[in-house]
């Protein structure tokens, strides 16, 4: 009996040690991965608060030897001022979210639930746009926008960003709508709900994670998108953040970079993305899963 107990104790200790070792090992791997992921961000923040001369030092220093907000100040007052560019980026991103949802929610609903002839073909055709790089569409779209007076307008840029985002959003939402139990929809119809009411009261509440995912992707894409904004906007007062970062960073005609200002811009532009991601992370992850495997 004593021997058995002793054996059990030994085994438990061994398992604990093994678990402990595995735990430490896993922890170390996680710390290593986090370091690799976070180091560039940390260095970027460090570089943004270096005094101008130190930010331009060659070879660069790893951590700031003095603190200065010069780089932020230069960016803050660049051309029309950073608040204008932040407002433009934010306005475009919000408009993109609204337009994307306005178009994809009804479309996905119809493709998921209505007996449309050849709807699978329609769905595949709509998804084909994923294969064509949007850069290839920019020139014709720009010429069309120029005729319609949509250049130099946030709405025009939001329309372009929506067009880029549509296929992916439709894919996620259509799959999510398909996954809503048919019984729920039937119950709503039995209670006298119209198609719109069913959409509003049954489908949308049960696909919130997917809708949040679509909104998040639209936000991040619009916030970071450069080439489309460059093509559509030609007035400094209408530039978005990526454009002004590309503009302000070049210091000489040979491509010389103002590193301090660039890092300050990067730091500022990361903040909204990180905030939105952290706040909605829960929905984001489950939304991705719901779109991917159903």
């Amino acid at each position, binding site marked *: 009996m004593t021997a058995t107990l002793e054996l059990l104790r030994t085994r438990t200790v061994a398992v604990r040690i093994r678990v402990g070792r595995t735990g430490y090992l896993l922890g170390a791997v996680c710390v290593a991965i986090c370091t690799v992921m976070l180091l560039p961000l940390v260095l970027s923040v460090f570089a943004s608060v270096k005094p101008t001369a130190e930010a*331009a030092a060659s070879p660069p220093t790893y951590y700031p030897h003095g603190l200065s907000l010069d780089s932020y100040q230069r960016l803050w007052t660049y051309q029309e001022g950073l608040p204008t560019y932040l407002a433009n980026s934010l306005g475009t991103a919000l408009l993109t979210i609204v337009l994307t949802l306005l178009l994809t929610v009804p479309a996905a609903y119809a493709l998921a639930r209505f007996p449309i002839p050849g709807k699978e073909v329609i769905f595949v055709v709509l998804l084909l746009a994923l294969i064509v790089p949007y850069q290839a569409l920019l*020139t014709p779209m*720009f010429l069309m926008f120029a005729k319609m007076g949509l250049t130099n307008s946030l709405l025009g840029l939001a329309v372009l960003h929506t067009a880029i985002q549509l296929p992916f959003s439709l894919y996620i939402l259509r799959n999510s709508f398909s996954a809503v139990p048919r019984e729920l929809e039937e119950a709503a119809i039995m209670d006298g709900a119209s198609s719109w009411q069913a959409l509003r009261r049954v489908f949308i509440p049960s696909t919130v994670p997917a809708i949040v995912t679509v909104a998040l992707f639209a936000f991040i894409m619009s916030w970071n998108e450069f080439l489309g904004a460059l093509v559509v906007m030609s*007035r400094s007062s209408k530039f978005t953040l990526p454009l002004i970062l590309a503009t302000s960073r*070049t210091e000489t005609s040979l491509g010389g970079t103002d590193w301090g200002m660039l890092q300050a811009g990067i730091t500022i532009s990361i903040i909204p993305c990180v905030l939105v991601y952290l706040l909605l992370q829960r929905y984001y992850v489950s939304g991705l899963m719901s779109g991917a495997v159903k």
Partner: protein
Amino acid sequence: MRSRLKWSVFLTATILTVAACSRGADTPPSAGQGPPATTSCASTGELTMWERSGGNKQMVDMLVEAWNTKNPTCKINLTYIPHTEMVGKIAQGIASGDVPDLMGMDLIYAPQFEKAGQLVDLTDRISSWPELQTASKGHMTVATFENRLYGVPLYADVSALFYNKDLFTRAGLDPNKPPTSLTELRTYADKITALGGGIKGYYLPGNCAGCNIFTVGPLMWASGAKIESAAPGDEPLTGDGVKQVLQFTRDMVKSGNVHEGDRTENGETFHLQFGSGKVGMMGTGNFNITLARQQNPKMNFGIGLLPGVGPNSSASFIGGDLVVVPKGSTRVDDAVNFMKFLLSDDVQVEVYAKALNLTTRSDMVNNKYFTAEPLVQDVAKALTVGRTPYTLTFFEQINSPQGPWLRMLQRAYYTNDSLDTIIADAKKEMKAISDQS
């Protein structure tokens, strides 16, 4: 970045094609005679202007500010376009009719736009201006296409040999005598490198086509060589100077006179190298005077001319921007008046010279501001020996990161391939590019 560049090039090509198709066979738009030019606005209402970022922003801002102060009823609204995207953006603007009233343009791309009929021909309006007699020759060369004139200088960037006087003194060299030939340059570099402590005698940007045409190109010109093919059938890379300079640069690298890290320099930190205080001599531009001072206020430095093989030979690359009027502009009179304003004595002295930037007229270099600043006087000498390459395919032949010019230099710097083979390969590629234009 590469991917963005690829798409930008693709977009530019598409837009230029669309523009060319929609233009048909018409001739470049001419602005006609127009009213006599003044240095004030001809009408009222805001003028829109584009300029590339990474040009001389400080200078351009001052010029626009001076104009706006003088012309409060027709201020210029200036938009900086990202430097690497400027050519595509202009082509796209012209194709769609969404153009600014006037714009600053990297002078090197001007011939391409002039040939395509995308700039307004200003010959009848400005060619008789006396100010143009002394305007920067390099700028005026590229502002002219088939004897028609399309613009005037906005500002000038010239290359010269910057040298660290502190390091010269430590190496036992005379700090008031920069090298006047490549042989001297090599000897001085050896002595400075021998100081040790991470100090090198010279600097060669290993991965930057633009930096090399700006600073190594003049070494070849000063040695009697010609680099680019100006037009189809024109032979590029001629003269013994090409091989002599390539041999010189190869020897510099092999003898350890340049930092190992120079090999990856793609232009992004090129402007920071001289101010680091670790480089004895370096070909760079007048923009580096202010930058080096900000970066390293205690450093003593001087400026000489970029030499060639022969004693007292020298050359320089005149870069910078032109002011031009894009096709479709509705305010040509005002744009012309802005040009007149830029070339006026008052602006040349009280804006350009006061800010210690090069004047764009050679007869304006003797002014009170330059007299008080010997470094600017020294760099201004480069204007007299400078030149600007004239070709419709400058980007493809020279400036492209994948182009024959940079490939030739990299093979010369970092491989043991025969220099004759390297030159022959580059020559063949440049000719092929030029023949297609």
